[in-house]
């Protein structure tokens, strides 16, 4: 029995179903919780690919930090305000304005990309290997030092910007 393959199909099913619920679920809180499941599923894909550190970061940053911020935003705001459309699912999927055009675009994109991947010679290249945390850390502080520092400044700027934006008018 090919257990990685079994794990892959299990993860694929869970992740894709959760992603589907994220984009169609009426209740925004449910969509956010399904998004957390999808993030954990993607972390499973990283683990299957041998990228253990990325799987760890995925759970820490996405399933931890991003989900916390998302849920706090949803719960801090008036729930009725962020609920969005109230049409039933079938009507939304079939209505020309809200469902059919995005669905056709997304399906066309998926078909195009899948056809391109299926026909590509890229799949026959030489294989890489899993990268350890030490190697990643060394590269981050040597080859990728400048992007690393720029990213830290970006995060600082984003933090300051988020604080300024989410403060009320009269509280400056």
């Amino acid at each position, binding site marked *: 029995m090919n257990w990685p393959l079994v794990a892959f199909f299990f993860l694929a099913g869970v992740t894709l179903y959760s992603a589907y619920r994220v984009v169609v679920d009426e209740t925004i809180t449910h969509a956010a919780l399904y998004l957390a499941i999808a993030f954990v599923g993607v972390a499973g894909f990283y683990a299957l690919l041998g990228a253990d550190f990325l799987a760890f970061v995925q759970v820490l*940053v*996405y399933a931890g930090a991003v989900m916390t911020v*998302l849920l706090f935003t949803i719960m801090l705001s008036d729930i009725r305000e962020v609920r969005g459309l109230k049409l039933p699912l079938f009507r939304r999927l079939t209505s020309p304005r809200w469902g059919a055009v995005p669905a056709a675009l997304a399906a066309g994109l998926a078909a195009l*990309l899948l056809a391109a991947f299926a026909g590509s010679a890229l*799949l026959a290249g030489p294989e890489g290997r899993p990268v350890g945390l030490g190697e990643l850390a060394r590269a981050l502080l040597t080859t990728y030092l400048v992007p690393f520092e720029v*990213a830290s400044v970006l995060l600082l700027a984003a933090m300051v910007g988020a604080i300024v934006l989410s403060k009320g008018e009269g509280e400056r």
Partner: protein
Amino acid sequence: MPEAGVPVGYFFAVSTLLFSLGVFGALRRTNPVAILMSIELMLNAVNINFVAFSRHLGAADPVRGPMFAIFVITVAAAEVSLGLAIVLALLRRRRSADVNEFDALKG
């Protein structure tokens, strides 16, 4: 086939479907928080592709793919915090959560 036992094409198929679902959600939703969540789905799909390509084709430089993924995660974290702050500010000012009503920048 790698020792993991999963053909690399399967990862591309899953990430393609994940990305398409994200596109569908970003186009269909009118709630800014839901649009942000769809964008996160798309970024995750891209990251799966980076790692899968690096794992299966990156014999020359196996660090590059995961490094790209790390920077994408960093930028996505910054993006989500700023996006949600903007959403909170909009909700406070407009009392509405429909992106079709946010047209102050319309030319």
